[in-house]
């Protein structure tokens, strides 16, 4: 099977010849080809080259345009801080929506306008052209909670959940409309899977997750699936209290971070949900040995059961030994 076929088969519940292998790589990929991360996030040709090289070297089943959470915020006019060799970040103290009234005047960004969102779309196009036959090509958008936090400021958004329900709903509506269009542009460019990153959702607890975030994740996922591709939901952090809600979003693949045991995810979401994860990327993967990585994956697979995709809980950290990543490959290829 090709990587693309393997991932598709896993999602559709058909047999696979070996476990799909889809660890997130960003800075690790840039380091693989020896480029500063600033180049990776500002030039889709560099990103594509790094992803292709990394996927080839470690036999990953996919390539991805995930890079940083600031692409949409940047095109909307948020202040971004750039770094030479790490991801850019939204400057929270000068958040675009520090004044809530600004939301009424905010317009959806023109993706074709030639800025950072377009660069991601072009990255998808290049990856699809060069590897789309054999690999799953993953586009990427921000989830409602993460994007709202980027625009409003994470700390402020947390209080808005109590202080101004109407504003939060309006903001989430805006985000879902924007991300649907962003996903559509990436699918048109050749993405065969869309990943949604919604890290901030792990901070808010089950009450607000069920009331505000999950319905909008669900809406976004339904819209993207309606475009014709499956969806991966990635929420970094401790999601133990929201696992069943995550399972009801309709995501085809759900990532679990290392703080959320796969066995709990399986129990909460049922046997048919495809789970991906979840070893600690720093303590287990970067600081472990090939043997300990292999052993940890045995445990993950046993806990997750057959509907499983090999990956770490989050991004493979910079500085992770090559042999440890190859242990993931060896594990995946030896199981089906």
């Amino acid at each position: 099977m090709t990587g693309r076929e393997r991932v598709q088969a896993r999602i559709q519940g058909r047999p696979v010849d070996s476990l799909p292998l889809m660890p997130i790589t960003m800075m690790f990929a840039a380091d693989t080809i020896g480029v500063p991360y600033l180049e990776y996030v500002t030039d889709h040709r560099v990103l594509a080259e790094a992803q292709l090289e990394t996927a080839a070297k470690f036999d990953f089943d996919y390539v991805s345009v995930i890079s940083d959470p600031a692409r949409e915020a940047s095109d909307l006019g948020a202040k971004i801080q750039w770094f030479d060799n790490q991801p850019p970040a939204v400057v929270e103290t000068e958040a675009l929506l520090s004044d809530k009234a600004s939301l009424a005047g905010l317009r959806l960004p023109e993706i074709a306008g030639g800025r950072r969102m377009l660069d991601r779309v072009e990255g998808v196009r290049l990856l699809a052209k060069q590897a789309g036959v054999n690999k799953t090509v993953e586009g990427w958008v921000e989830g409602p909670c993460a994007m709202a936090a980027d625009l409003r400021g994470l700390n402020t958004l947390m209080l808005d959940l109590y202080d101004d329900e109407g504003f939060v709903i309006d903001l989430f509506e805006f985000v879902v409309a924007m991300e649907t269009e962003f996903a559509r542009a990436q699918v048109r460019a050749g993405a065969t899977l869309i990943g949604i990153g919604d890290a901030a959702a792990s901070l808010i607890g089950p009450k607000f997750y069920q009331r505000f975030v999950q319905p909008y994740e669900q809406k976004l996922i339904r819209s993207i699936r309606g475009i014709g591709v499956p969806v991966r939901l990635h929420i970094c952090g401790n999601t133990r209290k929201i696992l069943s809600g995550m399972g009801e979003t309709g995501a085809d693949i759900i990532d679990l971070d290392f703080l959320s045991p796969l066995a709990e995810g399986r129990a909460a979401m049922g046997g048919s949900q495809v789970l991906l994860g979840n070893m600690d990327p720093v303590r287990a993967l970067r600081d472990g040995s090939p043997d300990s990585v292999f052993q940890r994956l045995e445990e993950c697979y046993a806990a997750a059961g057959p509907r499983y995709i090999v990956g770490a809980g989050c991004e493979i950290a910079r500085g992770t030994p090559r042999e440890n990543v190859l242990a993931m490959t060896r594990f995946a290829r030896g199981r089906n």
Partner: protein
Amino acid sequence: MADLAQLREAIINGNAKAAAAVVNTAIAEGTQPMALIHDYMIPAMDEVGRRFECEEYFVPELLLSARAMKAALEPLRPLLASSGIQPAGKVLIGTVKGDLHDIGKNLVSSLLEGGGFEVIDLGSDVSPGKFIEAAQSTGADIIALSALLTVTMPSMKYTIEALKEAGLRERVKVIIGGAPVTQQYADQIGADGYSENATLAVALARRLMSGTRQATA
């Protein structure tokens, strides 16, 4: 008459207006500021920390309670300053150079303040030089460093090295935390302590202060 039990409840429930109102009434009635802080406000934030620890509370609730604590502290500050009452310790806190993630740092900051510490929050992306400057000007007892990214963790090491070069390392304790940070890393770079979460950070700071006070007694 001020219903002081309401002060505790207001902070736990994140009701800033009610918390400030009880404090203002209590002050007008001549209640000692330290009695309010020690008997009601610190226990309230300890309870908030406990609920956060056992996942009854999450970040929104913690920030809401921290806001109520601040509102309750506000009218007390001038009284504390004029009476010369010392805080549990003085903590400089910041997310290290290159890192803009501040939610974890803010949680620690809130709980430390709720625990009776004076907290000077330097914000995010704080250079070693800025930590040193602030340590010199404030006479801080503890410097708390936060990092969310593996790539910014080395800034913790550089800050500790800079403190040594500035001759401040013996005078100030350094504690570190953040998702990728480990006890092993703390030992490696010579930090005085590591905490895996916000509530334990308060216990760590109290422990270090008690050690400092014993050493200087």
